[in-house]
């Protein structure tokens, strides 16, 4: 038992927790990005996708709880490690040069904190609809395939990014995210002890590659909206079940 406790307390173990939770979050980010790219396929596709996610039910909550746990452990580990690092050098150098380290690797704490704030902001924006409530409750969408009235995710996103301040905040956040990911991914594989020379060829480049992919993939949406590639769909009079106050008109169906 004491050896288990010692294992759990060891910095190498904390780093392993950091690496595994980080890779889980990256897995989520890849899925989230691919889903978001359905914005380019039009309202029918993305709204159906959003509905599909909602209909997953318990599975959706499993993923959500998993993500909350991964985030929680990732943050907990980072606090542990950052505190230790701070204590390890109480007196700073007068002059210290960086030798081989990248800017991203030296600013992980800053980029990590920026991402944390962004995640909270992003959830308040598009998940809870507290930021920009008007665009969040922009109205419902009648599915062409089933006739079901669903939350108009497509118009919500377009209306959100038509505000330049919102778009700029997302662009800034993605720069922090890319910086974080570019070091983190490669570092995680190193922490997990990947040593095979062929595997290392991939893991040493996977960080910057993913960072670039996220930057292009995620930012294509706000930029697409701003330059008008993604246009707002015509407003329908439907009110989705997510809107609380239903006008109760003949062409509005509320559950």
């Amino acid at each position: 038992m004491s050896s288990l406790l010692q294992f759990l307390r060891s910095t190498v173990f904390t780093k392993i927790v950091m690496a595994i939770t980080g890779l889980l979050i990256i897995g989520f980010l890849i899925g989230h990005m691919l889903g978001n790219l359905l914005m380019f396929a039009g309202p029918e596709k993305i709204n159906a996708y959003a509905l599909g996610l909602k209909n997953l039910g318990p599975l959706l909550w499993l993923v959500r709880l998993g993500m909350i746990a991964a985030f929680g452990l990732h943050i907990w580990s980072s606090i542990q490690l950052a505190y230790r690092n701070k204590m390890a050098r109480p007196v700073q150098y007068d002059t210290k040069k960086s030798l081989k380290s990248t800017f991203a690797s030296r600013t992980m704490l800053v980029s990590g904190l920026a991402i944390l704030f962004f995640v909270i902001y992003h959830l308040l924006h598009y998940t809870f609809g507290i930021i920009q409530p008007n665009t969040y409750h922009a109205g419902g969408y009648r599915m062409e395939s089933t006739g079901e009235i669903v939350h108009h995710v497509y118009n919500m996103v377009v209306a959100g990014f038509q505000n330049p301040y919102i778009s700029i905040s997302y662009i800034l956040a993605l720069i922090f995210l890319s910086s974080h990911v570019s070091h983190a991914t490669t570092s995680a594989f190193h922490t997990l002890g990947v040593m095979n020379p062929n595997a290392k060829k991939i893991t040493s480049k996977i960080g910057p590659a993913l960072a670039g992919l996220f930057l292009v993939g995620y930012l294509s949406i706000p930029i697409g909206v701003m330059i008008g590639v993604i246009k707002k769909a015509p407003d329908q009079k439907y009110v989705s079940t997510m809107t609380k106050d239903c006008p109760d008109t003949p062409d509005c169906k509320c559950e």
Partner: protein
Amino acid sequence: MKLSLKIWRQKNKNSEGIFKNYVLSDVSPDMSFLEMLDTLNEQLLSKNEDPVAFDHDCREGICGSCSMMINGKPHGPESKTTTCQLHMRKFKDGDEVIVEPWRASAFPVIRDLVVDRSAFDRIIQAGGFVSVNTGNAQDGNTLPIPKPDADAAMDAAACIGCGACVAACKNASAMLFTAAKVSHLGYLPQGQPERQRRVLKMVEQMDNEGFGNCTNTNDCEAACPKGISVHNIARLNRDFLKAKLFG
């Protein structure tokens, strides 16, 4: 050539240190960095001032004593070179040279540029050894070691324990040192019986000494006068995981 030196002066472990400026003229480009400090100390002694204390022993680049931060880089501007092997021709006339001790809570400053690096010794004592029965030495050829393994073990064993990795690391982490010591025995058949216990004990001791942890920035590798590869850190991580999961 003439140099303006800014050197950390500290009387003992408990006193407050301060930077002092010295101007040293007639520095020959053929001097080593330590010979330049010797020259400065002769001048200080002739003026009845305390000489600058610094660690040194072999002056051949293999003992790992001459640890100091020179202009923000461990062992100075030349890569894969210890301070004693650094020559003054790497500096220009009129240069300002800032000399500081290693900064880490696990390496307390004892005096001026001298730090106590016995934390490293305690990491070695925790597991950086192989237990061998006494008696006649075994015939070398009865224990075949593949050439790549022997080379990798030798590369790791090149670590002189100078502490430049800790000094260069933004977290003052001793992972490169510990990893080198774990690997150089771990690559060899003699190191196998104690392989798992070694990595666990050495990591535990490393943590207890108050070093930071590795964030894989690779500054240690660049600072190492012996060019120890961070590959050894991945190897330590793997050994650590294996020892815990399957040990």
